[in-house]
């Protein structure tokens, strides 16, 4: 199972590729697929995105140290288990729930 693939080249060239949902957020949401090595603007600075980030996924707005609470919609959505550099993809590999573990395909019957 692969992620979402872009179907066509959307007519959204003039819109910024990243969304800030709340001023206090420390992550940004990709409004379209972003290629590895693509240059994006984050808070006025030009940043190279090291790995591909798909539509709807998150990347770090600033450097996030391990243990940092991640804010989206201005609300905490978990804590960093390992650090992430500015512009880096923030997902299962570096962010974990403060409530319950997340499930991925391929895990057995034990969700822990």
């Amino acid at each position, binding site marked *: 199972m692969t992620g979402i693939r872009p179907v066509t080249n959307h007519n959204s060239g003039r819109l910024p590729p990243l969304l800030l949902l709340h001023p206090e957020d420390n992550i940004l949401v990709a409004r379209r697929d972003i290629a590895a090595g693509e240059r994006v603007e984050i808070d006025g600075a030009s940043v190279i995105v090291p790995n591909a980030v798909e539509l709807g996924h998150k990347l770090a707005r600033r450097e996030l140290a391990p243990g940092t609470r991640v804010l989206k919609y201005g609300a905490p959505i978990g804590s960093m288990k390992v650090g992430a550099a500015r512009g880096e993809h923030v997902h299962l590999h570096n962010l974990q729930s403060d*409530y319950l573990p997340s499930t991925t395909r391929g895990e057995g019957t034990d969700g822990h």
Partner: protein
Amino acid sequence: MSPVSNQQGGMRGYPRSDGRKGIRNVVAVAYLVECAHHVSRLIVQRSGADDVHLIGFPGCYPNKYALEMMKRLCTHPNVGAVLLVSLGCESFNREELRRTIDASGRPVDLLVIQHAGGTTRTLNAGLEIVHRMRTELARQTTVPMALDELIVGTVCGGSDGTSGITANPAVGRCFDWLIENSAACIFEETGELIGCERIMAARAITPELGREIEVCVEKAANYYRIMGYGSFAAGNSEGGLTTLEEKSMGAYSKSGSSPISGLIKPGDVPPRGGLYLLDVVPDGEPRFGFPNISDNAEIVELIACGSHLILFTTGRGSVVGSAISPVIKVCANPDTYERMSDDMDVNAGRILHGAELDEVGREIFDLVQKVASGAPSKSEALGHQEFILTYKQFEPIGPACLPAA
């Protein structure tokens, strides 16, 4: 600015004896145990009619919740008549269900396969009954129906990173407008609201209700912890969602910004307009497994609470509909919309390309009235009539859950 209903005399409903009105007039064929499922399905299929819907409960052991749900579903305003199909030896209290339907003034009949003489005889008898019921329903007339008589439920399925940015807040906008027009709106799945309990409680119309909301989310978190899984599927993470509380915040935006008027449980019908939270997580020690094993189980509970139609938001792309009440699909992800547009009623993903949230919210608001006026939703036109009902147990809601208006 809140749009006002522009359906001048547009919405019409079938009047029911309890004062509610239906936006559809379906014949429900209900199996009362899995052993009667196939015969019931044959009756529905061979009737050849889109307005004959299959519902039922598969279990042979009795369950109070299942009986209550079947009573609510069989007397739902969108249901005009009911044919019950029993094998004969199951524990389901078919006579009590039959009496309840009969007392509502609806045509009701019961076939017991063991008495009728097997599959073919029951099928033939069932087809005759359904034909007679449809003829009777065709003679019923509609009366004008206003927005304040409408109950709308919302559910999300196959959420991804776009759901909480586009489709869910757009449905929230629609909910705000429906509630301004005195409709009742229901959001649900407390297990997908873990992390939102404080902000939700602050929106409750009384502090006591706020406390009840916090307790009910705590119950959900505890229940899912014992199950070992949160309500979080593989597709959620592939779509960019990382944690349960992240999914929760996105799901929460479906509720809009109206005050929360009540906390209800499956089968409780909102007493008046306003926003209601439906607690779908069973009470007591976890006993029968996952609270809701799939999206359709949640839809069935929303319908049991009187929902005339369902707003279903999806990012990854769900195709399901439902028996009894039409399901409107609001697609959050623009790429999914392009792939699956035949199944999607609204492209909320265009918000990512610059469309305004209000514009999409308005489209949903208008579509709700169109579908309530008889236009089929996409899933409805495609014949989707999924239905699932399983074992659960609930205590009645406490007095703080529905404060007087």
